[in-house]
């Protein structure tokens, strides 16, 4: 394979052979396994922690809110916390993903497409693991309908893929100004309390409600609640605002996926 390396890009001439395609698939699997191993490490319960974390977090907040308010909506809270965790994981993963330029292969350059596909596979597994425990609780304990459960699986996966892409589109700026990662963490913490995570949108009012109408997460989580037949504003939302916000999210995400190779190449000489 003839490879040409210049300032603009690293590219290969000609089509990939079937051997090269199968090597790339093996590499995707290797990167996925490596990322999962990094999470499980030496923990005895391994990746079970990915499943347990949103359940335990939801139960803690459920307990706190029950004490404080005297009443709360547990199904709504479980859906909010699990989907928000998916959003956080995917956004952060996208933002930091180009820090690992090699995918763990230190002796050979591997194609950006391989790293990207491995990231998408990981996103799918991570999102599934984050939501599946909560889905079980919702289905068994709270009798949420089967349609509601399936919708939550699909909505979570959509959140995962869209926000991973949004993270990717900010990754170069985040690498240049690492301070922004702290800002992002603080912002995500703020939105955990200010956004419709622990409570549905119907529990908000005034400026709080108005601001959340411009929060993309609102539409995903409220749709999941609507499909689970819980309190939701989906029937009264302004379709125009929702469409503009969602289209902006999707476009930013696509831009992130599209530009990742260029980002990866640009930052190779940033010490």
């Amino acid at each position, binding site marked *: *394979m003839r490879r040409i390396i210049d300032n603009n890009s690293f590219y290969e001439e000609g089509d990939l052979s079937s051997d090269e395609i199968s090597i790339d698939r093996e590499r995707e699997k290797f990167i996925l396994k490596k990322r999962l191993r990094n999470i499980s490490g030496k923990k005895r319960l391994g990746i079970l922690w990915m499943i347990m974390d949103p359940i335990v977090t939801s139960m803690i907040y459920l307990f706190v809110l029950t004490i404080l308010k005297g009443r709360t909506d547990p199904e709504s809270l479980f859906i909010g916390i699990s989907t928000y965790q998916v959003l956080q994981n995917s956004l952060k993963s996208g933002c930091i993903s180009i820090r690992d330029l090699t995918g*763990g292969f230190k002796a050979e350059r591997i194609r950006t497409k391989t790293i990207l596909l491995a990231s998408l596979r990981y996103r799918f597994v991570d999102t599934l693991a984050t939501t599946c425990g909560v889905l079980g609780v919702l289905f068994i304990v709270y009798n949420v309908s089967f349609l509601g459960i399936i919708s939550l699986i699909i909505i979570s996966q959509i959140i995962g893929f869209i926000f991973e892409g949004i993270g990717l589109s900010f990754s170069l700026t985040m690498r240049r100004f690492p301070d922004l990662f702290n800002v992002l963490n603080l912002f995500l913490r703020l939105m955990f309390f200010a956004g419709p995570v622990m409570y549905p949108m119907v529990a908000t009012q005034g400026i709080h409600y108005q601001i959340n109408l411009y929060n993309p997460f609102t539409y995903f989580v409220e749709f999941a609640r609507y499909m689970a037949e819980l309190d939701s504003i989906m029937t009264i939302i302004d379709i125009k605002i929702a469409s503009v916000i969602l289209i902006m999210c999707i476009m930013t995400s696509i831009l992130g996926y599209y530009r990742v190779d260029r980002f990866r190449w640009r930052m190779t*000489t940033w010490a």
Partner: protein
Amino acid sequence: MGIVRESIAIQDLSLEYHDFIRAKNTPWGIITPFEALNSLSLVINEGETIALLGRNGAGKSTLLKCIGGLIRPAKGKIITNGRVILLAGVDPGFLPDLTGRQNTLELGRAYGIKSELLNQFSDSIEDFANLGEAYDRRFGGYSTGMRGKLGFGFITALEPSILLIDETLGVGDVEFRKKAQLRLKKFIKNSGTVIISTHSLGLAKELCNRGILLDKGKLVVDGDISEVIKKYTSMTS
């Protein structure tokens, strides 16, 4: 006489690193470009074994990384023909929680070894690295020398078209170094292109037929290995 094929062509290559520096007068920090390679042009043919010489910071490792496609040139172009493997340090990407054997099997597959040849591949590395029962122990617990043996054994077993070696032959004990040189000679004999960045002039003279001397990112001399060593010695003494 056979046809000489071009393996690597480097045209007017320059490279800049961008460093973040915080100082008293720039408390917020500034990004400063640093030129690591300056207008290098070279042609390397298939089957050549080249010693890359130069003082620390001359740009040897940067040039190897650039040929390996790991870093972006600021200017110029590199064209390579065939698979390029870079042995920098001693680790092709081994996972610390797996044993040496598990690593060679899992990583071997990801480096393109076919399933039916994997066991043979792993056995050949076991035989070369001579780690004994440690081959079935966690890689994370290996000493630097053991890691070097496994890493070198692994990468040279891949048989790439172009092998780039960055100061790795110094790892391990005397016995290993001899074995590594023998393995490398075998690789060279099989007509792969090899570039070795080294400070060991004896090794360079023994293994290489051509030398390239770099200084401050610039090409000083490119030619017969004896002449280049002579120039390097006069430069450093």
